[in-house]
Every structure is written in structure tokens, then in C-alpha cells.
């Protein structure tokens, strides 16, 4: 491997002065073509002048936002990705992670060949095998499990943009209802369930904020810019520059808080108290959209009575915010209605009471008259396209995920072929929503309500995303069979029996990206280069497995192109035609009330926004949100908060060479004064120990004024214990490993993770 050699040459300056004297004479005849000069001097041509540039269409896989991209390659080497100007998400721009797409492809640590375990589980010892061997072995194991325990005994976890093939298509064709995505119960379930309960529509993958005309933006915990979703950064910057007011509620002075008109450094865990006080001000001072509320909501009287005691003074005590700021911010929202809204955040599984908190947010938006109004929250519409005409699936899917489609949850849970519904405790331990990934771990250990014996894990960083990873390891030890499908040798891959190495998004065709949006649209993915090494796309893997498992009727198509063209035919298009429209098909949306011709856009029982929820009341829950105090950090402990860094996604990109270079390890944000009291200096490495004695670190302290003194903060996804990841292994601390506990949201099944506390250990 050639390596970059950096050297300073001043020591030889006499010699170099002579050389440069010679060089000077070259530069004087400035008409020399660059290539010649470069070659003469041993420098390189820029990549885009080394050969013919091949352009392919794709959607970015570096985070789940999936911006449309154009991929530029020369002679079978990918050099650059840029935003696709025709794509409604990227609009020609990309975030740092998107720019690192090629770096992800060329990560030398990638899994290169199928493998079968030779050592003990967790030891990470494997032998490389052929695809035929790996597939035969896997099919055999799944068959045995299915025959002995029913197809429901196979759980499928999937994440990243190829998850459709395993978590949806394969799981449903095979017949397991136990398919889950972390984007549901570890992320968005509460906001989705709250939205469906309150106004009948999900949020979906693309938060339907009408950024173009919004005048007052309220962010609760959303750290736009650090959470680097490209479109949101674009929209925010434009709205902000237009003069839209910004209110940021965050215990930490985030980069976006630095741009806010009001920063409310709230005491963590008390957000619902703030929201109730805002409702109190809006109603008491009659600062709400009266006509809208009369026409489109039910339960205002009940809500008014409910929030009457929750004055700003009441909330001030709880939230550690001045009552005047609470009042002023409520008035600022009201002054701008209906071009004002609290942005539905993304990761909202915080304290276990999260669906109720999200409902409070939507109630405020309803009082502001934001839904269906220009500059408020528009109505998303899914693009029209048919599914591939496959035979009916063996079970209806409920994996959800951040691309959830609008629709009501049916009262009965779907049953698998041997009559078993989801094993995650839906309807008993929690009310509703997509399959809760973390709740599928206990059945793997206890066999209750029925045993889960095999696990397929596609692209989920199992031990760095599901809280209580200690428990997950226990489950991994108990399972009969574990298949890991991944691009990288992530930590959990060491626990697999079989490893399928996957081709990256830039090396494969994939399912269409069908986006509910203001302008509904469809984007395509095609390979820029042949898959590196002996890697394969997920569609190929599930098809090969399916053919070995007697599932031929679902796999009549032979190639991904055939599958995709069959779907596209339903809208009179094809891959070729899509290429002519820059890889994107954009359809007409119905974003505003006017588009519904007097019909209600709200598919609730009442056809209105339900401030008071009969559905919750009849299920034994509070029909309107209440403030429930959450446990406080014990003396000497801080609440552990976590979030994003703009160059990293989850626990996925820490090893990507370019991104690793830009942010190789996470830091512990610790209040500077508090650090002083503890005798800790900026830049010092410390360890963290949580309330249960779990440890992680070492992590570098960032002593800063930008955080409250009762909490510490770190970027999620670091501290991975994965020796095969040469860059990410052991860098920084893992928030997940310090989350030995979580609070289950009894409504949505979300896993609230901000209920863990850490103390700082200076030496171990």
C-alpha cells in the first residue's frame, strides 16, 4: 500500500532553491497544459480529468434521510457524489456524511466474503466460505427453526436503506411478525403514535414542516446542524435568514440554540411541564386560532380545564426556566400563528412518557392552527405506485420504521402462519405502534410469550443501538442461529453464526425510495460500480434464501431491474425513463386544506384533531397529557444525554475513513464550573460509570459553559468494542453501554433512554 509521505524540506532549501529556479523557467511558458506540468512533476491529474466520467443515480445511504445523489465514477472507481438537483430532499446539496459516500465504499475494513463461525459465539472466529455454502447453511438453519417452532420464531432486525428486503419482503413472505427497525421504538414511535392518536396521520419519514413560509420555529431537543439532515439544514437556514423567529428548548447550548431568539435551557425531563404551561398561556390569554380550533378540533373545553392549574409560575419551578420566558415564548408563537409550529423532533424516545409529551406538542400546533396551513405543518402525501405483484404475504408487516405510511392501526394484531402474533408485548405491555425491537430481546432469553430462536440482523449495530446491550448479549448466547448481514464487521458480527457481506448502496440496485412528502416522489438506486470483493446486494441474498426455502412464488423476478421495472410499469415508467428525468419521479401533493375540497383531512374517529382522546381514555390512559416527574440523578451523578455530530450517523460511520478523520472520538460535554469543582480539566480523559456500575471510556472531557451542570452529553455511536474496525474500535465512550436501563413508553412501546445516570471516574 502506498502511503502518504509528508516531509518538510526547508533543511534542503539550497537544493530546492535550485530546483525551483529550474521550475521557474517552466512556469514562464505558462501555456503548458496542466497535465504535462503535473506529470513532469510527479503530481496527479484531478480525478475528473483522468477519463470518461460515468454518472449514476442513487439515494444516499449514509443516514436514513436518503437524499438523492448523482455518483461520479471513472474507470470503475467512485470519486465523488453530489446532491441530485432534481431530488426534493437534496436539491443538489449534501451533508458531510453524504460527501463521504465513496469513503464508506472504500473502507478497507469492509467484510469481503461470506463467513461461517468456527470459534465460540462472540469470539469472532470465522472461516470464509462460498456464497452457496453460506446460503445453504443459513437456509437449513432457518428451515429447522421454522419446522420446530414456527416461522414466528425467527426475528428479523433491519436498518439502513436496504432494510426493505430482509425486514419487510423476506420477513413477511417467510411469515414472521417479529420484524423490527430501530427507527421505530428506539427513535420515532412516540411521535408517530401521538400523531395518529391526535390527528390521525403519521409524521412519516420527512417531517412535514412548511419551512418556506414558517415564521416561528420551535425546537425541543432538535439540534439542527449537529443533526445534519441535509434538507432540514437547508430549510432552517433559509427560514432563519428570512427572519423567522426561533425558540430552542435544550439543556445544551447547541449550534442551533446559538442562532435562536430564545434559548430555554430546560431541566432535562421536564419538557411536558413547559408544554402544559404554554397551553395554559395560549388558552388563558385566548391567543389561539379560534376559528380553526372551533372547526377542526374537539375537546378544547376539557383541555382548558385540564391546563388551568399549569401556569408559567408552576412550570418555572419544575423546569428551572423563568416564568417570563415561558410566557414570552408562548406569545411569540401566538403572534405568528398559523405560521408557527413546534417541529416534531426525530429521536423522541427519552423518558418513557414520550407519546404524551408528543401529544402536548401537537395540541399546541393545533391551537396555533398549524395543520394544513401554509407556513405550518402540511399534509404529506405518498406517491402513487403499485407494489410488486407478488402473492399475498404470509403475515402482514408491522416493522414500521421512519418511512411509515399513513393509515390506521387495526385493532387486531396480525398473526403468523402458526397463529402467533408479535412477541414484543404489544397490546399487553404497551398499547400500539410498530414492533418494538428492544422488546423482542426478552423472548429470546425467557421463551415468553413464545421462544424466538433465530435472529437475522441486517445493518443494525445491535450492541450500539439497543439499550441494555448486556441483556442483548445474553440473548445472543441463547439463540440457535444468528445471521448478520452487514457492510462492516460491527461489534455484534462477532456473535453471528453466518455473515453475509453486503454490497454498499453505491454498488447495487435497490428497492425504490418512495417518499411521502409535500411533493410526493420516487427515487431510484443503481450501481455505480460492480460490488467490491465477494459482496452481494440484499435483494440477491433474500432471493437466494427464498429459493432455498420453498418461497419461489415470491421470487419470480430474477433481477432487481426486473422487479423495479415491474413496479415502475404501474405508473407508466421504467428505470430507463427514470434516468431521463434524473432518477426521480415527482408527483402532485395535497399539502393544504384547500386541496381537500371541504373533506376532513384528519382520519380520526371524529374527523377532527382530538385534544381529548377517547381512544386513550378507553384504554386506561390519561386522555390529556400530564406532567409526571422523572427520577433525578442520585448525588454525584449526572443525567446522561446524547445526540449527534454533523459528520456521523448512529453507530455506522465512526469507521468511515474520511468521517473518522474529521471526528475520531466523542467528547464528554461537562459544565465548566462543575468540572472545576471536580478538579477536572478540559481535554482530560475520564471514565464513566452508570447507576448500575456499567463503565465506558476513556472519553475526553469538553469542559464548557454550553451545558447545564446537572447533565453530561456525548455524541452517540462511539466506544465500540469491535477490533475489526481499525479506526472506530475503542474510540471514545459508548452511551449505549451506559444505558443499562430504559423506560418503556406504555403507549408506543418506545424505549426511553434518558433515564440513565453517570458519575465521572478519573482513574481506573
Amino acid at each position: 500500500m502506498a502511503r502518504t509521505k509528508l516531509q518538510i524540506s526547508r533543511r534542503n532549501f539550497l537544493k530546492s532553491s535550485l530546483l525551483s529556479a529550474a521550475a521557474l523557467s517552466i512556469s514562464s511558458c505558462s501555456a503548458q497544459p496542466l497535465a504535462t506540468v503535473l506529470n513532469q512533476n510527479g503530481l496527479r491529474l484531478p480525478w475528473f480529468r483522468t477519463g470518461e466520467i460515468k454518472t449514476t443515480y442513487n439515494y444516499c445511504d449514509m443516514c436514513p434521510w436518503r437524499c438523492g445523489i448523482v455518483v461520479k465514477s471513472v474507470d470503475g472507481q467512485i470519486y465523488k457524489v453530489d446532491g441530485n438537483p432534481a431530488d426534493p430532499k437534496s436539491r443538489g446539496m449534501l451533508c458531510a456524511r453524504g460527501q463521504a459516500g465513496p469513503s464508506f465504499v472504500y473502507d478497507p475494513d469492509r467484510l469481503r466474503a461470506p463467513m461461517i463461525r468456527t470459534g465460540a459465539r462472540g469470539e469472532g472466529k470465522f472461516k470464509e466460505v462460498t456464497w452457496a455454502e453460506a446460503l445453504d447453511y443459513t437456509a437449513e438453519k432457518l428451515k429447522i427453526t421454522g419446522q420446530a417452532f414456527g416461522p414466528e420464531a425467527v426475528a428479523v432486525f433491519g436498518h439502513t436503506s436496504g432494510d426493505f428486503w430482509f425486514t419487510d419482503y423476506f420477513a413477511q413472505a417467510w411469515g414472521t411478525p417479529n420484524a423490527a427497525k430501530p427507527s421505530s421504538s428506539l427513535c420515532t414511535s412516540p411521535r408517530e403514535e401521538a400523531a395518529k392518536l391526535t390527528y390521525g396521520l403519521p409524521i412519516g419519514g420527512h417531517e412535514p414542516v412548511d419551512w418556506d413560509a414558517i415564521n416561528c420555529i420551535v425546537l425541543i431537543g432538535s439540534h439542527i446542524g449537529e443533526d445534519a439532515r441535509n434538507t432540514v439544514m437547508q430549510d432552517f437556514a433559509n427560514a432563519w435568514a428570512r427572519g423567522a423567529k426561533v425558540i430552542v428548548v435544550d439543556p445544551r447550548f447547541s449550534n442551533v440554540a446559538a442562532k435562536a431568539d430564545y434559548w430555554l435551557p430546560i431541566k432535562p425531563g421536564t419538557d411536558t411541564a413547559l408544554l402544559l404551561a404554554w397551553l395554559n398561556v395560549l388558552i388563558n390569554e385566548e391567543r389561539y386560532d379560534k376559528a380553526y380550533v372551533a372547526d377542526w378540533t374537539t375537546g378544547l373545553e376539557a383541555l382548558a380545564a385540564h391546563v388551568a392549574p399549569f401556569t408559567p409560575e408552576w412550570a418555572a419551578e419544575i423546569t428551572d426556566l423563568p416564568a417570563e420566558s415561558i410566557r414570552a415564548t408562548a406569545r411569540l408563537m401566538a403572534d405568528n400563528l398559523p405560521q408557527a409550529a413546534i417541529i416534531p423532533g426525530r429521536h423522541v424516545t427519552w423518558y418513557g412518557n414520550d407519546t404524551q409529551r408528543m401529544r402536548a406538542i401537537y395540541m399546541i400546533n393545533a391551537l396555533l392552527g398549524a395543520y394544513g396551513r401554509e407556513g405550518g405543518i402540511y399534509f404529506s402525501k405518498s406517491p402513487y405506485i403499485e407494489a410488486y405483484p407478488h402473492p399475498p404475504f404470509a403475515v402482514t408487516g408491522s416493522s414500521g420504521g421512519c418511512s411509515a405510511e399513513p393509515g390506521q392501526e387495526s385493532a387486531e394484531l396480525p398473526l403468523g402462519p402458526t397463529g402467533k402474533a408479535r412477541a414484543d408485548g404489544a397490546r399487553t405491555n404497551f398499547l400500539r405502534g410498530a414492533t418494538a425491537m428492544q422488546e423482542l430481546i426478552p423472548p429470546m432469553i425467557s421463551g415468553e410469550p413464545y421462544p424466538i430462536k433465530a435472529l437475522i440482523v441486517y445493518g443494525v449495530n445491535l450492541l450500539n443501538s439497543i439499550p441494555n446491550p448486556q441483556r442483548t448479549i445474553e440473548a445472543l448466547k441463547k439463540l440457535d442461529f444468528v445471521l448478520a448481514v452487514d457492510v462492516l464487521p460491527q461489534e455484534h458480527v462477532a456473535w453471528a453464526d453466518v455473515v453475509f457481506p453486503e454490497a454498499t448502496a453505491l454498488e447495487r440496485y435497490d428497492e425504490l425510495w418512495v417518499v411521502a412528502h409535500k411533493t410526493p416522489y420516487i427515487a431510484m438506486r443503481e450501481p455505480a460500480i460492480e460490488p467490491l470483493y465477494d459482496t452481494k446486494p440484499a435483494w440477491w441474498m433474500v432471493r437466494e434464501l427464498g429459493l432455498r426455502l420453498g418461497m419461489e412464488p415470491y421470487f419470480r423476478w430474477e433481477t432487481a431491474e426486473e422487479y423495479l421495472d415491474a413496479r415502475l410499469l404501474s405508473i407508466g415508467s421504467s428505470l430507463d425513463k427514470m434516468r431521463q428525468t434524473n432518477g426521480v419521479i415527482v408527483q402532485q401533493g395535497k399539502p393544504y386544506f384547500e386541496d381537500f375540497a371541504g373533506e376532513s383531512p384528519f382520519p380520526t374517529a371524529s374527523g377532527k384533531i382530538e385534544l381529548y382522546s377517547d381512544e386513550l381514555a378507553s384504554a386506561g390512559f390519561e386522555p390529556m397529557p400530564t406532567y409526571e416527574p422523572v427520577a433525578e440523578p442520585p448525588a454525584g451523578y449526572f443525567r446522561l444525554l446524547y445526540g449527534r455530530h454533523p459528520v456521523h450517523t448512529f453507530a455506522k460511520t465512526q469507521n468511515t475513513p474520511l468521517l473518522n478523520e474529521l471526528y475520531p472520538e466523542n467528547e464528554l460535554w461537562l459544565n465548566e464550573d462543575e468540572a472545576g469543582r471536580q478538579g477536572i480539566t478540559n481535554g482530560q480523559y475520564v471514565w464513566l460509570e452508570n447507576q448500575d456500575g456499567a463503565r465506558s471510556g476513556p472519553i475526553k472531557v469538553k469542559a464548557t459553559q454550553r451545558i447545564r451542570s446537572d447533565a453530561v452529553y456525548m455524541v452517540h455511536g462511539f466506544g465500540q468494542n469491535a477490533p475489526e474496525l481499525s479506526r472506530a474500535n475503542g474510540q471514545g465512550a459508548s452511551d449505549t453501554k451506559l444505558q443499562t436501563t430504559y423506560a418503556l413508553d406504555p403507549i408506543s412501546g418506545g424505549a426511553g433512554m434518558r433515564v440513565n445516570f453517570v458519575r465521572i471516574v478519573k482513574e481506573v
Partner: protein
Amino acid sequence: MTTYAFLLDLGRCIGCQACVAACKTGNELSPGVQYIHISEQTRGVFPALQSSIKNHRCYHCADAACVAVCPTGALYKEDGLTRLDASQCSGCAYCVDACPFNVPQLVNGRSNKCDGCAEVVKAGGQPWCVKTCPSNALMYGERETIMAEAHRRAEALRVRYPHAQVYGETQLGGLGVVMVLPDQPEQLDLPANPQIPAVLNTWQNVVQPASVGLLGFSLAFTGLAAIIARRNHKQEVAHLHVQNSAEETAAVQPDHANET
């Protein structure tokens, strides 16, 4: 001749580093090398805080100290921007010491810095960083257009930040990166009146004319270079240190990452 410039709007910039990554991939920069550095600047005490993003890069000074000291013409002005033809660089590192913003670095024994994506813009494209910036904090175009946009933005920004202003209209003869600042330059770690180091005036007047004739050039070069080299000995050690650690990083990079 048309003069081009960049707009860098520090009101809009949110520190996402998309520009950094786009520059690195588009220009195939070696591991450890960046043309843009993003960092946070925070002032005040909790909860009365202010913070902004420092966006450090070559500002393409009209009166460019780096160009003034460059004995080989590797650094030169073109279209209002400061270009670098690394093939001409002798590795003397005078530009490293002369730049008032501490921009150029030696990589592989040659000067290395933003050249305004010369090849890309000449082919009709936008600089990589500009093309990707999600916050629309970066623009590239004719200097007049950029200047007008900068004033428009600074004016709009004053509603929020009374001290918002344009920076780079006059500094160092006018910067090729015109900045919109949310606050006074001193608050943002920028010199209100950046100066070319005084010693460089001698340099420019004596050495540059002399360099036309090769003999005179070499003589003057040897003498003055030795003086500057001694003056900056400490700084040189620091540079070496940075580069050595970059070299270690480089050793674990993939085959495709650039090498020369």
C-alpha cells in the same frame, strides 16, 4: 478581466462541515489535510452565551502575503483568487510563515492550500464547497455580485445582530472570500485590520524583482531565507509535529486514498 470571489456567510453557517468533506473528496486531499477548518467560538457564561462558527480557510487576499514571498511563482493571483501551482513549489515554506491567517501548510514538501477549485471553475463548475453547503452560507461568483449580496445579507442580519457587517471589502486590498459577520471581527477571532508582516515588504521589494534574473534570485534567496528560517525555527518544529501525526494517520488509510 473579471474578478471572482466567494461569499462566506457566518450568520448562516451552522458548522456542519459538508464543505470540508466536499473539498476533501473533490480535491482528493491526503489524510490529515484539510483546506477548511470548522471550530466553535463561544463567549459568555451559562446561560448568557453567544456562539458562532469559525470557518478557517484561505481568504484569497488581494494583497496576498503568500504570493509576495513565494520565490517561484507557485503562488499567484488569477481572477482575483490566489492560485497554487504545486508543481512550481520548492517547499521553502515562506508562504506558511507569511500568511497573516496561518493558512498554507507543507504537504509532501510542497505548499498546500485552497486554490479556489481552479480546475473545476474553469470547466464551468462551482467550487466543491460552495456546491454542497446546505445552509447556503457559501457562494461563488463575480466579485461585484458577491459584494452586493454580502451587503444585502449583512443588512438583513442587523435586525438580529446589530453589529453584523461585511468583512473583506477592504482588508488586505480586499479579500477573495467576502464574509458576512454576525458580530465585530474581534469577537470572531478575526483581525479588524490584518497586516502583511513588515519584514515582507523588504522581501517583496528586494527578492521579487531580483527573481527575474536567476542568479540574483538565488543569491538574495539564500540570504533572506536563512533569516526567515531562523526566525521561525520554533514554528517549524510545530509544523513538523503536525505533519508527523498526519503521517501516522496516513498509514492506515485505504489504497485508494491519495498518494503521490
